[in-house]
C-alpha cells in the first residue's frame, strides 16, 4: 500500500509539473551546445519541403551532432499554431517568418536579434537585397535572414489565344488592353467554359498590384493610415471587380470553390496575375508548354507588389548556438543555389537568381527579376492580421457585386483606420 501511495504521489507531482509547463512565460532561451542539438524547423509550403529536406541532409552531414526536424503546417494554420506555441514558450527553434507577421513577433520579444547569435558574423547583410533586410529590421535590430522574394507576373495561355484568334499579350500592354481582351475571350469561348482571366483572391495576387498600378495605396508609409478611400485606390479595386461583374473572370463564388490559379492551370482561363511563388503549381500543369509569362499590364504606372520570407530564430530556443549555425547555412549561397534550382522560389542571396530563371527555360522567368525594379513593398503594420481579416470580409461584398468600389473602399478605410489606431 505504501508503494502505491508513493507512486500516486509521484504521478500527481509529475502531472502538476506538466501543467505548470503549459503556462510558462516567454523570453527564456539559451545557447545550448553548438555541436549537439535537436532542432525544430517550421515551414508552411509543402511544395518546398523536398528542397528543405535536401538542405537538412546537407547540413546534418556537415554537423553530425545536430538533427533537424522539419514541421510543415499549411499556411492557413501556420501562424495560428506558431502564436499558440510562442505563447507557451514552445515555439520551434527556427522558423519561416513573413512581412505581415514580423513586427508582431519582433515587438513582443519573440525573436532573437541576429547580433545576439554566436554566428552573427557569418551572416553578411550585403548578400541580400536591401529592401528585404529592411523588412526584417525592427527598431534598429535585424531579426531575419532573407530566404527568398517574390514579385508578380502576368501569365497567359497561348493555346487559348490561338483558339480565340487573338494576338498574345506584349511587354507593353495596358490595363485597358487586358480588360478588353479578357472580355473578348470570355465572349468567344464562354460556351466551352473558358474565361478571359481568373483571380486568386488574396491581396498579393490581385489588388495589391492593381491598386498601385492605378496610382493608389493600401497603407501609408508610416503604417498609420489606410489608403482604401483614395479615389485611385478605389479605381484599382474596381479594375478587378469589373472583370468579375462582366463575365471576363469567374464570379467570386466560382473562385471560392475553385481558385483562380486552378482555373488557369487547367486551361480554363486565358490570363492571370500571379506571384512568382506559384511557379511550382504551373510546373505541374498539363498546359505547361503552352503558357508563358509577361510583365503585368501597365495601369497609370507600372507596378507590382513584392514580398519576401526570412528565417528567424525563436527567442525561447534552448539551442540558439546550433540554430544559428543552421540559420547561417540556410542563408548561404549553397542553400540559395538549391532553392533556385528547384524553381520553387526566387532566392534572396544576391547573384543566385539566375539559376532560378534557368530552372524553367520554357518560360520567360526573367520577367519576375525585372519586376523587382518597379515593385512596391507589401503593405504591413504591427497587427497586419487584424485588418487583413477586414479586407477579406469587406472586399468580398465588392467582388460579389453587393457594393460599389466606392462603398467598399470607404467602409474598409474606416474599419482599417480604427484597427490601426489601436496599434
Amino acid at each position, binding site marked *: *500500500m505504501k508503494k*502505491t*501511495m508513493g*507512486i*500516486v504521489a*509521484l*504521478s*500527481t507531482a*509529475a*502531472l*502538476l509539473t*506538466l*501543467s505548470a509547463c503549459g*503556462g510558462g*512565460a*516567454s523570453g527564456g532561451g539559451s545557447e545550448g551546445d553548438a555541436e549537439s542539438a535537436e532542432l525544430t524547423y517550421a515551414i508552411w509550403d509543402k511544395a518546398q519541403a523536398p528542397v528543405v529536406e535536401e538542405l537538412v541532409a546537407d547540413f546534418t552531414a556537415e554537423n553530425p551532432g545536430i538533427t533537424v526536424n522539419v514541421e510543415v503546417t499549411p499556411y*492557413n494554420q501556420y501562424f*495560428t499554431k506558431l*502564436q*499558440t506555441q*510562442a*505563447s*507557451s514558450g514552445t515555439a520551434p527553434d527556427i522558423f519561416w517568418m513573413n512581412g505581415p507577421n514580423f513586427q*508582431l513577433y519582433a515587438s*513582443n520579444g*519573440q525573436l532573437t536579434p541576429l547580433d545576439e547569435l554566436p554566428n552573427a558574423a557569418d551572416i553578411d547583410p550585403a548578400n541580400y537585397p536591401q529592401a528585404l533586410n529592411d523588412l526584417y529590421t525592427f527598431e534598429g535590430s535585424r531579426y531575419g535572414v532573407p530566404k527568398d522574394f517574390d514579385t508578380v507576373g502576368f501569365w497567359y495561355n497561348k493555346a487559348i489565344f490561338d483558339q480565340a484568334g487573338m494576338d498574345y499579350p506584349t511587354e507593353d500592354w495596358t490595363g485597358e488592353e487586358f480588360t478588353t481582351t479578357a472580355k473578348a475571350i470570355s465572349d468567344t469561348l464562354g460556351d466551352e*467554359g473558358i474565361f478571359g482571366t481568373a483571380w486568386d*483572391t*488574396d491581396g498579393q495576387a490581385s489588388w495589391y498590384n492593381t491598386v498601385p498600378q492605378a496610382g493608389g495605396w493600401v497603407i501609408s508609409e508610416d503604417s498609420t493610415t489606410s489608403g482604401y478611400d483614395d479615389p485611385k485606390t478605389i479605381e484599382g479595386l474596381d479594375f478587378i471587380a469589373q472583370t468579375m461583374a462582366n463575365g471576363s473572370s*469567374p464570379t*467570386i*463564388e*466560382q473562385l*471560392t*470553390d*475553385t481558385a483562380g490559379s486552378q482555373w488557369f492551370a487547367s486551361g480554363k482561363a486565358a490570363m492571370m496575375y500571379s506571384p512568382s511563388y506559384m511557379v511550382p503549381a504551373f510546373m505541374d500543369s498539363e498546359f505547361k508548354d503552352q503558357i508563358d509569362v509577361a510583365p503585368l499590364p501597365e495601369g497609370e504606372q507600372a507596378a507590382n507588389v513584392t514580398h519576401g520570407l526570412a528565417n528567424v530564430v525563436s527567442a525561447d530556443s534552448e539551442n540558439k548556438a546550433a540554430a544559428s549555425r543552421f540559420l547561417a547555412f540556410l542563408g548561404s549561397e549553397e542553400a540559395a543555389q538549391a532553392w533556385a534550382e528547384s524553381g520553387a522560389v526566387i532566392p534572396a542571396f544576391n547573384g543566385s537568381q539566375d539559376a532560378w530563371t534557368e530552372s524553367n527555360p520554357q518560360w520567360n522567368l526573367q520577367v519576375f527579376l525585372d519586376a523587382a525594379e518597379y515593385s512596391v513593398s507589401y503593405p504591413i503594420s504591427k*497587427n497586419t*492580421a*487584424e485588418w487583413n*481579416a477586414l479586407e*477579406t*470580409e469587406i472586399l*468580398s461584398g465588392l*467582388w*460579389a457585386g453587393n457594393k460599389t468600389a466606392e462603398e467598399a473602399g470607404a467602409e474598409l478605410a474606416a474599419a482599417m483606420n480604427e484597427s490601426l489606431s489601436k496599434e
Partner: protein
Amino acid sequence: MALSQINRTSSRGRTAFPSGPGGGLRRGRSKNDGVAPWLFILPTFLGIGIFFLWPMAQSVYFSFTEWGAFGGNTWTGLENYRRLVSDADVLGALMNTVVYAGVSLLSIPVAIYLAGLINRPGLRFKGLFRTLYFLPVITMPAAVSIVWRIMYNGDFGIINYLLSTVGIQGPYWLATPGVAIIAVALVGIWTSLGMNMIILGAGLQGIPTEIYEAAELDGASPWRQFRAITVPLLTPSIFFVTVMTVIGSFKVFDLLFVMLGAGNPVTQASQTLVYLFYDKAFIANDKGYAAAIGLLLLVLIALVTFLQFRLQKKWVTYA
C-alpha cells in the same frame, strides 16, 4: 505515462475487493476499506480535475481579462461581456448556430424512418445496411469534409452535375451566404444518422411485439400502429437523441472549419458560436473575449437542455 502507471497499480491492488468464494461485496466491510476506495477514484478524479474542471474555472476567470498577443492578461471586469451583448458577429453566429441545430433536428424523423426499415423482420443484408449507415460516424470529420467539399464544388462537383442532368442548376453550395451553413448541416446529418439509427433501433426493439399483435387483432392499419404504438413508445429514445443532437450541433466546429475555413469569403457570414470562439481565441488572439463567448455557449446549452428536460413531461411516454 503517469496516468497509465496509476491505472496499472490500481488493477494490481486487487486485495481491496473481497472476491472469495462467496463473491460480491459484504456490507460490513465498507468501514474497513479505509483509503483504498479513494485511491481507486483518484486517477479519474485527477484527470477530470486537471484537464476539465481546472481549465473550466480558468476560462471563467479569463472571461474577465484581456490578453496580450503572446500571453499575459489583465483584469478588465465586465468589459468582455459588455462587448458580447453589442457584437453583431455574436448575434450572427448565434443565428447560424440555431439554423444549424434546426437543420440537424430534421435528421431525427429520417433516422426513425430508416431505423424502422432496417429493423423490419426478414430484411436481408441487415448487417450490411447497418454498417453502411454507421460508416460515416466512425470516419474522420476532416476526411468527410474534404470529400464533401469536392462534391459540393459549384462548377465541377458531382452534386451539381447530377442536378444538371434533371435540369436544375445547383447553387455554389459552399460559396453562397445562407446556403453554406445549410450545406454544412446536411453533411452533419449524414455523419450522425448512423448513431441516431442505432439508438432509435434499440428503442424499437424494446417495444413488446404483443402490443402490435393486439392492435392487429383490433384491425389497426400499419400507419395507425406506427402513430399509436411505435412513436409514443419510442419517445424516450427520441428525447435522448434530440437532446444529444442539439448539444452536438451547438458545438459544431470541425465540419465548418474544413469545408469553409479561413480563406472563404462566406465564412464570416456562416460561422457558428464555436467557430467564432476559435476565430477570437486563436486567430485574433483575443483570448479573454473568446472565453466569454465560450461561457455564453455553456450557458446556452445548459439552458436549452434544461428546457428540453422540463418540456419532456408533455410529450415523452415512459411505458
